[in-house]
């Protein structure tokens, strides 16, 4: 390589993750008890996948070491935390029986904030409206079951 680039740290981390995945898959095949007498057993395919992943981990590592990965801009972490936080809040609300509409409104507000909106009350109201509309459409019209909460019992 003529162009000497800096090693790509996060890229190497991705390669390490791939190697770890290969390791987990291989370890899992050692836990299988029963083997087939002839033909391929349940351990064959995972071992091939694990071997392939290990090989690819090395190839990815070499590319990262050479700094040969495509350039990427700087990423803003705050929106990532907001969206993942919104998903976590959604799971929490559903687990504790808050119902689909409330959970949806929270996720809607968190995502809109992640994309730069600051009108929390307005967005929450829109989120509630979207939640009510989808709830009525899917739960009542298409008779699909959505998690119930205090708001859902009103309809």
């Amino acid at each position, binding site marked *: 390589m003529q162009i000497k680039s800096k090693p790509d740290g*996060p890229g190497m981390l991705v390669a390490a993750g*791939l190697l770890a*995945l290969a390791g*987990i*898959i291989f370890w*899992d*095949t050692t836990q*299988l*008890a*029963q083997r*087939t007498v*002839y*033909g*391929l057993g*349940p351990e064959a*395919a*995972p071992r091939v*996948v694990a071997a*392939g*992943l290990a090989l*690819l981990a090395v*190839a*990815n590592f070499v*590319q990262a070491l050479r700094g040969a*990965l*495509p350039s*990427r*801009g700087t*990423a*803003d972490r705050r*929106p*990532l935390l907001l*969206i*993942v936080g919104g*998903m976590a809040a*959604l*799971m929490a609300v*559903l687990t504790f029986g808050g119902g*689909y509409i409330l959970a*949806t409104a929270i*996720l*809607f507000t968190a*995502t*809109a*904030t*992640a*994309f*730069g*909106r600051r009108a929390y009350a307005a967005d929450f109201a*829109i*989120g509630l409206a*979207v*939640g009510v509309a989808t709830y009525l459409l*899917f739960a009542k019209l*298409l*008779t*699909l*079951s*959505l*998690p119930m909460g205090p708001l859902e019992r009103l309809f």
Partner: protein
Amino acid sequence: METFDALLQGLSVAALPGNLIFALIGVLLGTAVGVLPGIGPALTVALLLPVTYKLDPAGSLIMFAGIYYGGMYGGSTTAILINTPGESASMATALEGYRMARAGRGAQALATAAIGSFVAGTIATLGLTFLAPWLVELAVQMGPEDYFALMCVAFVTVSATFGDSPVRGLTSLFVGLAIGLVGIDRLTGQPRLAFGMPELLDGIDVTTLAVGLFAIGEALYVASMRGHATEQVESVRGSLWMSLDDWARSWKAWIRGAFIGFPIGALPAGGAEIPTFLSYSIEKKLSRHPEEFGHGAIEGVAGPEAANNASAAGTLVPLLTLGLPTSATAAMMLAGFQQYGLNPGPLLFAEQPQLVWGLIASLYIANLMLLVLNLPLVGLWVRLLAIPQPWLYAGILVFATMGTIVAKASVTELALLTAFGLMGYVMRRFDYPIAPVVVGLILGPMAETQLRRAMAISLGDPMVLVTSPVSASLLTIAAIALLAPFAMSGLGRFKAAED
């Protein structure tokens, strides 16, 4: 003649009022999501799978096919008017189309794209109609080892041969294959990679993976990169009609595009980028106005758009006749078939001719609907682009999570969805292609089953893979397709060093 009878029978199914409505909903939804940045046809089908499982299979599948075709139409509108192609297949269209829009010829660019899509879509659907029965007869004679070899070809071409980087494409594929291993082994009943969690015993749901990767991954990526790019919608102004000269320059490009797109789509090669860029460079070479390329040449929109639509129809050939998905949308459509307990392939043609031929016939209708809807309604579609980005993505996430909640209302499933979203984010950040993961998850277990079946029949003799001529030649093709990009990149590096 048999094909004509079958097609006529299919038309009688597709023309039922209920199915016409499904086709209409499909093309409208498809065009809308094609226009909107951030959601493509694959994601839309994935989102609709859980809410359609109670509906009539034929109607839903007709709707999914309409979404696929509509998405291809809609993508061109975005590419032409805001220079951000909705999907990679529209990248070539954006090159000339956006220039035409800036020069006040947006209407002509949209028109040649729409009419070209119709012409090419119809040619390619004809190709599908006449190729499918022939391929089905071939497929009946294929043994499990031949299917396994064919899937190997699909694995390689989808991931390694045509992407930017074979290493990153193969990495995506193997991650998909790894995800496909999760769950109870179908032959011995032993759990693999389930880590004692009962929710994982059934395996990873392909819709959860696709929705996580496409919807949540995309939202995370766009949110984190906000402020890097500004988009401006070019308005459609001036005459809405194509001049005689526009027609004269477009029609050959449409036909050529159709004949480039269909075969490449029909081969298990996947992706519409290759045929669209191939068509673009051919039109540039053949044009009598090569100087206009780069400044808004109409052939540069007509050809790639035609190739794009023809290849979408082409991918339905291996999907319907062999059950082999070669694009993310085709993979989601296969999941749609499976949700009704249907397995595309030769058996489906024999057992459910009404359904298969109804679906094929509905493609002609969908294409016609798109032509009629697209030209007059383009102003309406453009208005979709005015939805503020925060609300658009918030809405996408609401629908994404709703699909999962409806299908399996468990925290594990939502956590998986979030995890796949983060994975999709990392993959976008490091430029790993997404489609091979989805194809790997859906094809991996099928390939394993076929291989084990072949080995069981041969009493464990691996030579069965090379003694069958079909399997041997397919495996050779797979090997060449795997090694070719590495050999060529080696040549490229050699050349660069010489310069």
